């Protein structure tokens, strides 16, 4: 199940109760699903990205990785695909486009997590596999831009209606910029697309549609860059731009959508009452547990003596974490060490027997 934000009205859903919530669907979060699954623990996985795979999928899908044991060369995208295939028997529930904002212990020893969309999870175990933190839209370093955010400057579109009748400036040349230009054009009062060069990374058919609208005078295309924002009380009025060939000029715009890609920011994790050390979460190296029992941290986000921010380290951390999680989820069950090669019990879970 992939969940689209905004599709569910606020409060319309029950809290989701589960054994494990994994925060972050990077390679380490994904492999943790496997290790937990072997121990009969099913997980919900939440990521703010619109796709699975964390850094591998967002930052370097086409680049080769050479140090995954047993895979002499594999791209970020391929590794993600392979991990998804590997964890399929355990049927994890993915929630994309959602950020975990709050994490609190409950009186009964479980934890309550709340997303930016006000959905709640109640869980026995939390696995923080948040890498370098939430992927967050880059904020153009324009003076005073913060004051306009949420009112006139937006990094994503949650509700189309909010853009009806506005004078919109969209900045960027990738799919987000082009897709939103095409979607908002019919409802905007006026719309301008600005990009630094007359060459677009977006899908060719979107670029064609965009050029057709320009030819019909329904969309203004400016090749140039934003220099300065003007307005009052968070309300944008004009934007000074520098066209590539020409002098600076002012554009009328009461709304701006800059699309300059994503960067990782620690984000809400800092507010969860966990010990932090230089934006990392210290853990032990037996269970990879944080300062709060029941909350584990694996992958790039954790820190311990000798830590290496490598995917393979995160895989190992997930395996040991799962053993400790088992003790919390099934306190009465004894854990028996087993190999996937020879255990018919594990093979049944994997669906190969």
């Amino acid at each position, binding site marked *: 199940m992939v969940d689209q934000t905004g599709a569910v009205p606020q409060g319309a859903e029950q809290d989701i109760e589960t054994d494990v919530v994994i925060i972050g669907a990077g390679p380490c979060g994904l492999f943790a699903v496997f290790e937990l699954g072997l121990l009969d623990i099913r997980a919900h996985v939440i990521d703010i990205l619109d796709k699975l795979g964390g850094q591998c999928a967002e*930052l*370097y899908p086409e680049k080769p990785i050479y140090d995954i044991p047993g895979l002499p060369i594999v791209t970020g995208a391929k590794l993600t695909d392979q991990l998804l295939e590997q964890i399929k028997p355990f049927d994890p529930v993915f929630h994309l486009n959602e950020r975990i904002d709050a994490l609190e212990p409950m009186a009964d020893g479980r934890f309550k997590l709340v997303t930016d969309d006000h959905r709640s999870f109640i869980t026995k175990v939390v696995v923080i596999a948040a890498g370098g933190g939430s992927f967050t839209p*880059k904020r153009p*370093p324009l003076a005073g831009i913060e004051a306009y955010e949420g009112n006139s400057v937006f990094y994503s579109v949650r509700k189309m209606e909010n853009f009806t009748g506005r004078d919109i400036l969209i900045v*960027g040349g990738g799919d987000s910029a082009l897709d939103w230009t095409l979607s908002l054009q019919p409802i905007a009062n006026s719309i301008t697309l600005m990009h*630094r060069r007359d060459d677009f*990374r977006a899908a060719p058919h979107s670029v064609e549609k965009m050029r057709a609208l320009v030819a019909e005078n329904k969309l203004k295309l400016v090749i140039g860059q934003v220099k300065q924002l003007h307005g009052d009380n968070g309300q944008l009025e004009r934007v000074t731009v520098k066209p590539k060939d020409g002098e600076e000029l002012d554009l009328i715009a009461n709304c701006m959508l800059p699309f*300059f*890609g994503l*960067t990782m920011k620690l984000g809400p994790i800092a507010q969860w009452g966990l010990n932090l050390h230089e934006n990392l979460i210290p853990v032990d190296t037996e269970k990879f547990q944080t300062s709060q029992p029941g909350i584990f941290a694996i992958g790039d986000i954790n820190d311990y003596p000798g830590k290496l921010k490598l995917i393979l380290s995160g895989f190992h951390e997930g395996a040991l974490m799962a053993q400790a999680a088992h003790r919390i989820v099934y306190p009465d069950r004894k854990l028996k060490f087993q190999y996937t090669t020879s255990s018919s019990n594990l093979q049944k879970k994997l669906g190969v027997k």
Partner: protein
Amino acid sequence: MPKITFVQPDGSRQDVEAQTGMTVMEAAKKNLIDGIEAECGGACACATCHVYVDEAWQQAVGKPADMEEDMLDFAFDVREASRLSCQIKVTDELDGLIVAVPDKQF
């Protein structure tokens, strides 16, 4: 060893010694040059190693490849002289190279 000069937005200059084969970004990081962030560690995946190549050196350094040009879309205040420093390999020909660090990376 080729010398590279980094010019800060306030005009201050730092000369560093680089080794051939390393990238201009690596030379900057090794010498703790301000304003070169290089979040992605040189994979042409973040655009936070953006520099402006001094006019006299633009020909020797050359133009960005397609992938780098795409990545420059994620940089701020991109100009003719813009390059991602992780994509410039230091060679003996670049001894004396001058690059300016932008006011702000993202």
